[in-house]
């Protein structure tokens, strides 16, 4: 991925930025099909350092937008509609998110049926190789607090603002939320 700057340059700028701006966000996109676990670990190391500086880390799972060269390149690859883990930018507002998982309420299920039936129109909702490419990376990011993790105490409320894109305040439906599981398990 060519962004026009190096990771070292990003670190330098972020370090300067936290001394200037009251709040600094850093977006880290992950889940590229060509991204190895070693690549992710390199990103993770920097995310830890940047988080310690006070920068808010906003991880974003790759979303295959239809007009991108990447999508055009891999559009014929096996893709999976896996609503348990939507890319952040693909969330529509009808999902219930809790503990890192996403569930769909019955009244909104037709929307997602529509999406699932039209992968070429809504490729952003689909993944490439969830089992080997997405979930292992997701769990690693979970481990370091960049995504919610079931069973881990999460601090929420107006007094807290911190590092992580996923920060739902969950309503009563939360109890029924399932966590993203291995796609093969059903």
């Amino acid at each position: 991925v060519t962004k026009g700057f190096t990771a070292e340059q990003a670190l330098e700028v972020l370090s300067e930025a936290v001394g200037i701006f009251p709040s600094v966000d850093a977006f880290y996109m992950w889940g590229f099909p060509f991204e190895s676990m070693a690549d992710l670990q390199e990103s993770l190391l920097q995310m830890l350092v940047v988080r310690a500086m006070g920068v808010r880390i906003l991880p974003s799972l790759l979303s295959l937008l239809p007009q991108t060269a990447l999508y055009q390149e891999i559009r014929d690859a096996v893709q999976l509609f896996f609503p348990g883990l939507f890319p952040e930018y693909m969330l529509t507002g009808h999902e219930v998110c809790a503990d890192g998982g996403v569930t769909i309420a019955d009244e909104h299920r037709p929307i997602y049926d529509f999406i699932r039936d039209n992968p070429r129109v809504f490729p952003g909702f689909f993944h490439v190789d969830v089992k080997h490419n997405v979930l292992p990376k997701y769990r690693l990011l979970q481990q370091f607090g960049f995504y919610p993790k079931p069973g881990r105490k999460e601090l929420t409320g107006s007094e807290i603002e911190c590092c992580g894109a996923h920060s739902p305040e969950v309503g009563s439906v939360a109890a029924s939320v399932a966590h993203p599981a291995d796609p093969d398990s059903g």
Partner: protein
Amino acid sequence: MGRMLAGPRAVESTGLDDFWQQKFMPSRKGTNWINVLKTLVCYRLIDPGSEWRLHRHWFDQSAMGDLLDEDMRIADLDKLLAHKTELQSAALPRTLSPSTAAWYLHSMSAKEEPSGSTTIVGGRPMRRAVEVSDLPQGVERILTLAALNQRFRTDLLRDPIAAAQSQGIVLDAVESSLLRAARPEQLAAMADRIVIPRSSDRRAFVKTVSASIVAMVTGKAIMLCSGCTGMDTWRRDAATPLGSDTGNADAGPVQQWMDLNGYTCYLYLPTAVAANPTLGHDVMAALHAMLASTSSARAGAPSIVRSVPSPPSGDAGHSFAAPAPSSMRLPGCTTRVALGCSCSRMNTSFPRQGACGKCVPPSGRAGSRSSGKRSDESISLTGAQWRPWRAPGALSCAMVSSQDVIAFWRE
């Protein structure tokens, strides 16, 4: 171009244009809202991106304006969102179901529910944090320590795993893997850049985490002041003078807090330091004394409002006698003092006893702001002395640091 021609037609075919036409008449300024809607539909379907990009780039670069004979750069979605519920229940004809139309409308916006919703749509709610004790902290700890300690930094670059072990820092398997894979120059850059965040209540949690990590790693106590750091919200009951939350003493530093001159000050004591019942009090007492000294020099300056419940001997009531600046060391206080400031370079400047470029040293000689380097000659480790320090600007902070304590507060 064909897609752009088709987009507005698609809107018309769903009946959405009729729906919205009843809601919004063209504004006094001439904004035709149905054309705003058509633009958004086309943008979302043809070349989705941010609203900023739509207004600043896509609209100008596309034929949309010509097709609609509009200048939409002032368009705002907020007026549409007020009718979302109505839209959901409307009997829209033809292609789109109401729920799909509602989905479409919602997907256009990142503004409707910035937080407190059951989803993370659009604007990315921010109110979430994980207790630091629940996360692997080895990487942050060794890099923070490397920023504070030149010798450890050298060890770290040579063998990060052995360096961590030498300090009793436990790394989990992933952390070890991360550090083994990192190049020495990467680690060096990270150690150079890692900082304790500056004052901002938006980053209170991270600030607290950083402070507690430094306390754990370095064996130093760290005091943070709400006036500087915005940490009032870390403990809702922080107004209690000198409260404490010992938690699991083996797991991390002890947090104490007190009200100092109207600011809630937090003191993080590593376990070993907390085991000494006098040290924390000494530190606080010394801070009181220093504040009293600086306050007395200014007419109308606020006085100390509370002191520790068990002040050291020599204390008279709830205030402390202000010793001379050259000997502001209270009886029994083992704190040694260096001078610094609370800028973002704080913890990298500290171990070298330097000021960052934003500081004006006591002599009045400015630091090297342009280079951002420490101006070692402008500041000195004063051993057992307290020396007041004043940085320019509204956030006038002093940092007192030593082997025992790092502190900063608003004068």
